[in-house]
């Protein structure tokens, strides 16, 4: 009995010590090798993945996000192939659960700034925007990506205005949308949206004032654009300055601009702006 106890005890102590020593050495080796976490993705279409996950789609989506989070948190630099894998994992996660906030925040945070894949980010954000009509952030991010990364002002204005319609969205969004709408020739649409926003009784006084100013500026742009069209029809060319519209008796005076002393005019394109941001 004593012999067996002694044998077991020495086994426990001996192998226990060996395990501790080996474990500690292994940690150092892996540290030296800079062993990094790798992201494994299988390029399976979303519906097929959905079938495999069955009723456990939600936790399967969470698992994929955890993989992405662990991967991004463990590496200093990721290769283009790594970003492709991240993009695939995020897309698959969205296919399994298109509602999750963390997924679209990862998409916006990593696929645009770090992976330089704004088109893919927009594509994925559109899935979130479609499934989260109560959330203004997905359309806002889409608008931002169109404006900042893709220089597509038409779509930027469309999505900023879309985001502005969502309850609780900052009033800045439709104002931004309206600015891009002027640049992309969708002034009337933006004007209608801003006018409808004034009906909201929950608006604060400062917000109401900002919207009213933007409406006034946009109405001025529309008025001048119509005058320019009349001028072109009459003279067969665009005027060199807005003053020529008064000289030719098309308008009595230029409308007031709440943001500057006068409206800005680009005679080569015929565009009229209410501020200097082009």
């Amino acid at each position, binding site marked *: 009995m004593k012999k067996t106890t002694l044998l077991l005890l020495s086994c426990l102590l001996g192998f226990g010590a060996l395990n501790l020593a080996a474990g500690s050495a292994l940690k150092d080796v892996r540290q030296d090798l800079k062993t990094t976490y790798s992201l494994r993705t299988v390029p399976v279409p979303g519906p097929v993945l959905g079938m495999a996950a069955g009723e456990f*789609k939600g936790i399967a989506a969470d698992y994929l996000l955890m993989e992405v989070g662990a991967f991004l948190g463990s590496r200093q630099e990721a290769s283009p192939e790594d970003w492709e894998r991240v993009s695939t994992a995020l897309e698959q996660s969205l296919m399994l659960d298109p509602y999750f906030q963390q997924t679209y925040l990862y998409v916006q945070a990593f696929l645009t700034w770090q992976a330089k894949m704004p088109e893919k980010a927009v594509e994925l954000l559109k899935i979130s925007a479609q499934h989260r009509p109560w959330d203004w952030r997905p359309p806002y991010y889409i608008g931002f990506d169109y404006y900042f990364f893709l220089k597509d002002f038409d779509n930027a204005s469309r999505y900023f205005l879309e985001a502005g319609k969502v309850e609780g969205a900052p009033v800045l969004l439709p104002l931004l949308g309206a600015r891009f709408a002027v640049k992309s020739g969708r002034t009337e649409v933006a004007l209608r949206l801003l006018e409808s926003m004034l009906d909201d009784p929950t608006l604060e006084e400062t917000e109401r004032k900002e919207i009213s100013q933007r409406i006034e500026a946009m109405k001025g742009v529309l008025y001048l654009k119509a005058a320019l069209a009349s001028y072109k029809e009459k003279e067969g060319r665009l005027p060199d300055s807005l003053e020529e519209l008064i000289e030719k008796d098309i308008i009595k005076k230029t409308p007031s601009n709440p943001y500057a002393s006068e409206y800005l005019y680009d005679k080569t394109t015929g565009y009229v702006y209410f501020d200097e941001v082009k």
Partner: protein
Amino acid sequence: MTKTFLVAKIAFKEGTRNRALHGIISLGILLFAVNIIVTAMFSWEMGKVAVDMGLSVISLAGLIIIFFLGINSLSNDLERRTIYLILSRPLTKRHYLVGKFFGLGLLVITSSLVLGVLAAVSVKIAMYGSESFMPAGFSWATFCLGIIYQTLSLLIVLALSVLWVTATSHPFTALLVSVISYLVGQNLENVTSIISTSKVFAGNPFLIKTLEWISWIFPNLAAFDLKTTAAYGLPVDAAYLALTAAYGISYIIVCLTIATAIFNRRELP
């Protein structure tokens, strides 16, 4: 009816005494502890992850009870011929089969109830101090609704399993066909939708028609899956709930009727 309930009571008692059930419940509790750790790994809408995990554990535990405990309980009665002891009393095969379903069903309901309470507790603990990270529309009412419909879905799988035990000669075959039925039930709607909208299969009306027929045979279990609805507190249509409940209950009754008819004709070993 009293005779049916007598069998149900015995089946339920027998189930609760089974050590496998204790193992399943312990596994459930362990998974809820994991839920608290996993939820902490997320930064936004962590409540969704907590609810997802909670409801998935309930479903998983229910499926294990049905596939391993339920099918075994029925098959053992037949294999070990203990059914003769029951049928020697003034009980018919119908009393036995329906009673067994009720007993095992009660076991599934109890498991859902116990794990449901534990899931709610784990969600509460996981979200303690981070209540603002719950999805905006989340409500406990939808959470409960998710559990109720999940349990109904489990009862359908149980009824199907009872049917397969009576229709097949070996417990393993019954288990295999039951698992396949469950998988088909979960995915049939998805597959039908993909195939009917895909251009690749447009020229194959036979396949589409076949799938349509299969969809009338196997239950549409995806309809009972309200996990996403519960996790995000998405709006639920009362008419949809009523329709789904009617569909589920009627499916169970049809399954049990066919199972009884087969069992009545079957010669016991």
